[in-house]
């Protein structure tokens, strides 16, 4: 006799519907869940805890809390490396790329969703095709183009190629298509031009999508590495990703200096972590194909 109790508890998914009893099944699931969560969170606990230890303490007792809490690693990081410069560069690039993507992606998304022009289908097909080209395959080619255009080793070389991303255009286009056409028709009747309609009427209505693009663009540009490797080489233009990568290969002299490296990894993760926790509902609900490699 099948257990029909399980079938009758099946309700439509909705907030606040929790089983009232603490069944053995839910306890078991909780235990499994916590065990896996521990595995997923342990590396971050280890990183933070060891960033506050001395080199020796970190090497000998990687799992324990520090015998003495010390911020020496952080001090060494800011004094003996260009961490400040790296941060500044990452911020500059992230700000420009995020603003650029918000503007250009929504422009193109709106055009593809709402404006009628010949060749619209071709542009869309080309966009899809471009998304199919694997990123790392473009490493050498992008350098060639950046070099030919004289943008190598400059902020423009680091920022301009990232100003638009196909996935963002997709997200905006999908969202614009879901806005009722009547809104724009009303605007046109009131005499607004195309850009005016877009900028003052439709774009403010697309706030959720714009917020999504903002977070995803910030995340992508903050965490980007290969592009910065090929677009610049001077130390003054190094970003956090490149800088911390050089730290990892032991650029700060001999010895295992793990606390310093962990401190670097910790500090560089703070902005994306904060953005994630503030906007997590937005990020985790946008499974529109904007997937990180």
């Amino acid at each position, binding site marked *: 006799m*099948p257990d029909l109790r399980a079938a009758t508890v099946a309700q439509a998914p909705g907030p606040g519907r929790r089983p009232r009893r603490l069944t053995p099944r839910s306890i078991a699931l909780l235990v499994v869940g916590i065990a896996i969560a521990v595995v997923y969170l342990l590396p971050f606990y280890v990183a933070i805890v060891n960033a506050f230890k001395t080199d020796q303490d970190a090497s000998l007792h990687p799992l324990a809390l520090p015998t003495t809490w010390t911020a020496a690693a952080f001090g060494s990081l800011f004094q003996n490396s260009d961490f400040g410069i790296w941060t500044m560069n990452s911020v500059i690039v992230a700000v420009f790329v995020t603003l650029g993507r918000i503007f250009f992606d929504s422009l193109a998304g709106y055009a593809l969703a709402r404006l009628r*022009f010949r060749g619209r289908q071709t542009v869309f097909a080309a*966009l899809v095709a471009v998304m199919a080209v694997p990123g790392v395959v473009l490493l050498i080619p992008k350098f060639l183009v950046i070099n*030919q255009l004289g943008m190598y080793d400059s902020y423009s070389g680091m920022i301009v190629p990232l100003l638009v991303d196909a996935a963002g255009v997709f997200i905006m286009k999908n969202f614009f298509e879901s806005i009722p056409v009547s809104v724009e028709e009303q605007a046109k009747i009131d005499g607004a031009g195309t850009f005016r309609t877009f900028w003052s009427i439709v774009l403010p209505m697309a706030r959720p999508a714009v917020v999504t693009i903002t977070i995803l663009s910030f995340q992508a540009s903050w965490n980007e590495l*290969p592009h910065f490797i090929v677009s610049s080489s001077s130390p003054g233009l190094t970003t956090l990703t490149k800088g911390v990568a050089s730290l990892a290969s032991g650029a700060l002299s001999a010895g295992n200096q793990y606390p310093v490296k*962990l401190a670097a990894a910790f500090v560089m993760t703070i902005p994306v*972590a904060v953005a994630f926790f503030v906007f997590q509902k937005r990020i985790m609900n946008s499974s529109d194909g904007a997937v990180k490699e």
Partner: protein
Amino acid sequence: MSRKNRAEAVSGWLFTAPTIIVLGLFLAVPVLMAAWVSLSDWHGVGSPFSSDVSFVGGQNYAKILGGGGLDEQNFGTALRNNLWYVVFVVPLQTAVALGLALLVNGRALRGRGFFRTAFYFPSVTSSVAITVLWLFLFSSTGAVNKIISWVGVHGPNWFNEPTGLFHLGAGNPPAVLADHTMLGISWWEWLAGPSVAMTAFILLAVFTTSGTFMLLFLAALQNLSPDIDEAAMIDGAGAWTRFWRITLPQLRPTLFTVLTLGLIGTWQIFDQIYTGTKGAPANTTLTPAYLSYTSAFQSQQWGVGAAIAFILFGIIVVFTLLQRWALRERPVSRRRMRWIEKGSVR
């Protein structure tokens, strides 16, 4: 065209112009330039279109795919390393992602928001930061070895151990495997599996990507109507059967997506190698993407580097097509159709 329509068309082109320019210039054009470079002998000085640069046909490709030199051996090694990485990571990350999604989706689990956040957080971090973490966790006196020592296992010096997984504890290779080579390395080496160092990277990949794919599976699971599952329950199907026959087939599109994205991603692993081991130990973490980078930017062999990139492109396309073919919707066999029809005439 009326004036209004023309104005709209102009706006359309104006609005998409930045996108077309940036993506065209930095995605489409580079591919064409790289194609030329891969067929030329450009050495990184001056323009690849200058008159000093000559067309050498498939010479760069021949150097990597044959030729018996270091180029061929490095490429073969990189290919082998990446192949094992793909073979391990893709099924693992897919299975783990699906498992996590099922766990988080189940109604019996309390605090689903917390778990979803915990499992997804690693995907948000930078690959550089996670690699730094990994170098510490998997060091010979690191946390991982400490934990497994609690169950009596003596952990290896992960990132310095070049032995392949399948060679651990193996003796001398049989002659037939050791004497014959493909792409510069012996069959014995091909079958070595990922090195212990590469295994650490495999675990890193599963750690950082399972969260993203978990979200994809979650979205799909939440779109499934519970009716079919309930009907199966009433018919007496157990949970395991229900999963394999009801839930999983309905997840086929998402499975497709996850596998495709997984294949595309794993064949391009670069960041972690650049940050962590740079190909060491003994070239067992060398990958085609990293080899392409070093051939061009360090050895100034730009033709070879570009050729490797294109071969990689081809490999990714082939694997993606293979995967689509393997998971295609097959028409229901005649025998099964008859069985279904017989069952409905009850």
